[in-house]
């Protein structure tokens, strides 16, 4: 196990190193480079730009800049915002809990509903329910999240007034109930796509398992169908789903960004969009990197869980 862990950790480290290089390259390939915003400002003279360059270390060779920047990322010094000079780490980490709350709640909800739908569809294969959920899932996967969010706001917030149209808390109210109230619409919108995927994954995974000998054996031994389903079927079917949860992360993070912008949910995604128009590089880069790190670590976590749960995964080779 230790060897597997070390191997997997090393792989993730290599991946993160690559991610940081791509991110850094992007920052420098962008037209005008990191200082584009200053060169457009008529009150900033050429001398000022030189001074800023030296101040930010942009006069040094690229590889020196990279190591400084990457070293900063690791040690927690993420630089300062171009506007207002606030610490980037503070700006970004301030928003992280809101994003995690949205993503976590949606994922949990989608898991429960998606697995339930998928299991039922697998058990009643080729039934009306099976076809209806298959078509429903396909349409849900094709809905533009932002449009679905807009419609949800229109119906449930503006017309019916059941839920607030955006934000995380009402001004002057911070109670748990108020927060939950704000959470409902964004979570439902973000969870829809995930439910669709989970129901499809669960269905195919379940069908594979239910056709296998050990399930037939369990049935033959006279164990009740529901117990076979839960204890034998679901238990085995969930293992590949954990790995899929890891693979789904980029979609989840991206979906969270879209959902946040529609519902003005004060998370990382909304920050990204608001900073995008001012091209505040250090903040944009930090968010891009945090997003990628979440994906890499999520995949690592999923692999470890699969290794722990599934005896078939060989822990030493790879």
């Amino acid at each position, binding site marked *: 196990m230790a060897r597997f862990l070390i191997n997997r950790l090393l792989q993730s480290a290599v991946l993160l190193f690559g991610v940081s290089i791509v991110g850094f390259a992007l920052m420098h390939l962008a037209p005008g480079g990191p200082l584009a915003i200053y060169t457009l400002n008529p009150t900033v003279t050429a001398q000022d730009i030189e001074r800023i360059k030296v101040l930010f270390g942009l006069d040094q060779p690229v590889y020196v800049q990279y190591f400084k920047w990457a070293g900063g990322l690791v040690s927690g010094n993420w630089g300062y915002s171009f506007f207002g000079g606030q610490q980037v780490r503070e700006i970004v980490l301030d928003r992280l809990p809101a994003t995690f709350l949205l993503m976590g709640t949606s994922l949990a909800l989608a898991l429960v509903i998606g697995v339930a739908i998928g299991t039922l569809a697998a058990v009643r294969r080729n039934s009306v329910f099976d076809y209806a959920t298959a*078509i429903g899932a396909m349409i849900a*996967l*094709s809905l533009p999240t932002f449009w679905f969010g*807009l419609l949800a706001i*229109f119906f449930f917030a503006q017309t019916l007034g059941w839920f607030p149209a955006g934000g995380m808390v009402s001004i002057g109210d911070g109670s748990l109930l108020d927060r939950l109230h704000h959470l409902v619409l964004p979570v439902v919108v973000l969870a829809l796509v995930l439910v669709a995927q989970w129901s499809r994954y669960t269905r195919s995974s379940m069908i594979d398992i239910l056709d296998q000998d050990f399930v037939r054996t369990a049935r033959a031994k006279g164990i009740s169908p529901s117990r076979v389903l839960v204890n034998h079927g679901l238990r085995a079917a969930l293992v590949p789903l954990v790995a899929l949860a890891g693979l789904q992360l980029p*979609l989840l993070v991206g979906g969270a960004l879209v959902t946040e912008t529609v519902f003005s949910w004060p998370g990382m995604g909304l920050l990204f969009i608001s900073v*995008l128009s001012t091209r505040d590089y250090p903040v944009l880069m930090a968010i*891009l990197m945090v997003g990628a790190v979440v994906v890499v670590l999520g995949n690592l976590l999923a692999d470890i869980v699969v290794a722990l749960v599934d005896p078939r995964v060989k822990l030493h080779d790879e």
Partner: protein
Amino acid sequence: MTSEAVLDIQAAAPPRRTSAFRRLLRHRLALLALIVLAVLVIGSAGAPWLAPHDPEELDIANRYAPPLSEGHILGSDDLGRDVLTRLMYAGQISLSVGIAAMLVTVIVGFSVGAFAAYYGGWIGTILMRLTDIMLCFPSVFLLLFVAAFVTPSLASMALMIGLTCWMEIARIVYSQILVLKSADFIAAARMIGTPSWRIILRQILPNTLAPVLVAATLNTANAILLESYISFLGYGIQPPEASWGNMLTNAQSDFQVDPWLAVFPGLAITLAVTSFNFLGDGLRDALDPRIRDK
């Protein structure tokens, strides 16, 4: 055995293709999707002749006309422009971006995957690690980051979306070619002295084409979704030129006045994306012999 195997492959190729097409047609949803797509393509490609108005014709007297009002079947927008007309012209942009972006994903993905698999070694390792690395970035973030620095146009949108979404195809092509490289019928073809280029063209390409075609169809759907979102946020296709996404930019503020303005562009996107997804699904069923019976 060897020459027989080759003969078998060559003899089997044409009928397989026709039966695949027949299987696709039997897939009712895929067929429906194909029809919907045909209507969308004809409607947008034929917009200059079919559209009832000019896309930028203002009709200030009839702003925010509701659907089914006279002269504006789907209503008019905040400047009195005809919604149906704009939807048709927007379809040109949105569908073109989707398909062009898909072509980019296929070209880049195929090149990276094929190069990595065929040459292997450290080049292969580097290319496939790059693919892994790119997959770590949520594509929406990456795309928006790049979009903020590039002057938006049809070509740049397609290129940007394509360059952030090619990884899946690279992986498919890579693994397919690795399997094929050691497959018996390729060895057989080599043994009877078939030249390399002929093997690549006649054996490897057709055999990787099926999964790539499926992925490409799904990529088109995804590209249309991404374009609509980027344009919705204002970093994509710029007004007055219409795209399904940028027609929704003001939808939120116009809700109180005319909620219909939010409905139709979204429906158009959903219709196009759903159709491409169903088509991809149908193609998968039709082209994959293993799941033929399921």
